[in-house]
């Protein structure tokens, strides 16, 4: 990587350090949740591991407080940048009352929170895509200047809702960023059994808008692509489909065993491009991060994760009878 890549991208040293911090935070929260799961303390984990660069690069390009997010279940990195904390993530993992996403009603990874402009998400994949389009349409009607980010896996790009949502956004030239995190697998099903096209980005032309494929292991490249897409959208030039190519470093979820469907060699190979490592290397090479700074960030992250875990573990569950609440509005 060239030394000045982040500067060329208009990112300050502090910003890339912040990016690194968020990437590491996402990773460490995730790793801790696996430990907690294996210790029988949390019933379920779904990971962002391997996808942090893309997520944090994308989130940095979006405008907190004005833009909207319709993320998918792996987007821990994205929601952290938009304001969720390690505590929030752990409250969700432990399914505690104060989980801001759902009050412990939903599995972890089902993000939401009005105060952060994060629309509540569900499990059936790709349903969030038309929602993002609807938010963009509504904002246009209300003459609000904002863009909407929505993400999904490459497998999920095969759902009808992707097609219908993308087409609608194309016709109305809405500022929606369709962010496909292509991590090569949909649970056990490899890319070639999911799609026959070269790149998911090839689908954009069928909706009359731009599609780009980028290195999802590179937060700077991702940042730039999303920034450009966002600006294009706000200029009224319509949506963009971005395929961020990466690799899912861990099993699909804590219920999965990936050894039956992919080789250890393949996983080891992918780990060489682990974005946490490669971005740290870039930051050092660029002279932005020295050992001390690295340690400082790492310590800060560890402390946050520790504190969050302890806090969440001891936090109260929702009241048993509260499952009856909020079927309809009052």
């Amino acid at each position: 990587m060239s030394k000045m890549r982040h500067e060329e991208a208009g990112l300050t040293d502090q910003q890339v350090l912040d990016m690194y911090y968020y990437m590491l935070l996402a990773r460490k929260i995730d790793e801790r949740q696996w430990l907690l799961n294996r210790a029988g303390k949390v019933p379920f984990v779904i990971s962002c591991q391997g996808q942090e660069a893309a997520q944090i690069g994308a989130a940095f390009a979006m405008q907190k407080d004005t833009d909207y997010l319709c993320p998918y279940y792996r987007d821990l990195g994205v929601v952290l940048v938009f304001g969720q904390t390690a505590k929030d993530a752990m409250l969700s993992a432990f399914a505690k009352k104060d989980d801001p996403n759902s009050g412990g009603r939903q599995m972890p990874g089902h993000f939401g929170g009005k105060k952060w402009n994060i629309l509540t998400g569900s499990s059936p994949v790709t349903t969030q895509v038309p929602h993002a389009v609807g938010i963009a349409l509504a904002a246009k009607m209300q003459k609000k200047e904002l863009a909407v980010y929505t993400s999904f896996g490459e497998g999920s790009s095969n759902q009808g809702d992707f097609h219908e949502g993308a087409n609608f956004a194309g016709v109305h030239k809405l500022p929606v960023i369709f962010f496909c995190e292509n991590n090569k697998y949909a649970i056990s099903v490899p890319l070639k059994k999911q799609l026959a096209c070269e790149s998911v980005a090839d689908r954009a032309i069928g909706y009359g808008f731009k599609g780009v494929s980028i290195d999802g292991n590179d937060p700077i490249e991702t940042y730039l692509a999303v920034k450009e897409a966002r600006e294009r959208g706000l200029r009224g030039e319509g949506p963009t489909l971005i395929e961020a190519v990466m690799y899912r470093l861990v099993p699909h979820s804590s219920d999965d065993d990936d050894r039956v469907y992919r080789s250890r060699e393949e996983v080891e190979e992918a780990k060489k491009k682990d974005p946490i490592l490669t971005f740290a290397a870039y930051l050092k090479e660029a002279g932005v991060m020295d050992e001390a700074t690295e340690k400082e960030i790492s310590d800060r992250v560890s402390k946050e994760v520790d504190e969050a875990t302890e806090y969440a573990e001891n936090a109260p569950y929702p009241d048993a009878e509260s499952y009856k609440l909020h079927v309809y509005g009052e």
Partner: protein
Amino acid sequence: MAVISFIDAVTMAMREEMRRDPNVFVLGEDVGVRGGVFRATSGLIEEFGEERVIDTPLAESAIAGVAIGAAAYGMRPIAEMQFADFIMPAVNQIVSEAAKMRYRSNNDWNCPITIRAPFGGGVHGALYHSQSVEAMFNSTPGLKIVAPSTPYDAKGLLKAAIRDNDPVLFFEHKRCYRLIKGEVPDTDYVLPIGKADVKREGTDITVISYGLTLHFALQAAEKLAQEGISAHILDLRTLYPLDKEAIIEAASKTGKVLIVHEDNKEGGIGGEVAAIIAEHCLFDLDAPIKRLCGPDVPAMPYSPPLEKAFMLNPDKVYEAMRELAYF
């Protein structure tokens, strides 16, 4: 008070709500210059422009899904499904998303969307333009289902649906559109969702119905009155969640209940109505709870003799009411 048709009441409700609240908008297939294939949105694009009366691409899951996103953001979309039969591609969005947003977010988000759809047969619409699909949705907490049978109710309930903070499926019997006329104030009024309505007071038998067949029951009741049989007729109006109190009261009143709907019998709304009665006022009954419904075949056939044999009509309802009265 003007006498207008059912469909004009629907249009009037939308027009008034769009005037009242700039967040209300309409989207669907052919709802723009065409004014809808039944012309329910007639005149709206002229008054409110194509920004608020949106001809969508032909994709029901997007119609629902985009409306859901817009509703969550703060708008009040009225999505039209061209025919109730074509709501099927949107089931995931309606059931997994609209109905569950409030609950799953622990009351952080909600989804004030209204989905209108013409249902029912008797218009030579064949299998896929005649279906009653309400029973597919009456086990989905978080949703409300409304199916008015008169112009007055249609206006008041559609306005209530649009203002409701939760998703409402609003089914309009397409045979009622121009057949059923009634007095409708041009003033602003809303009717409560969740409340059934006694459309005729009576003492011998109770008929519970909704939609087109409600009118068949009213006609039959007139005839029976001449024979000295007094029928009490309850219009469900809201099909989900049902108005249990009103059902129990109406059933208890006469002790003889006939449930009538055009939708097929097994698994239809009538089963739940009967179950409520059997659970709550069994000992008030003087006769088995009867149901007169569409036949349990996949959908209404096209050929005139088949359609006629399939459809209920005032005579069939009359026979069933009479039989119950003499039980």
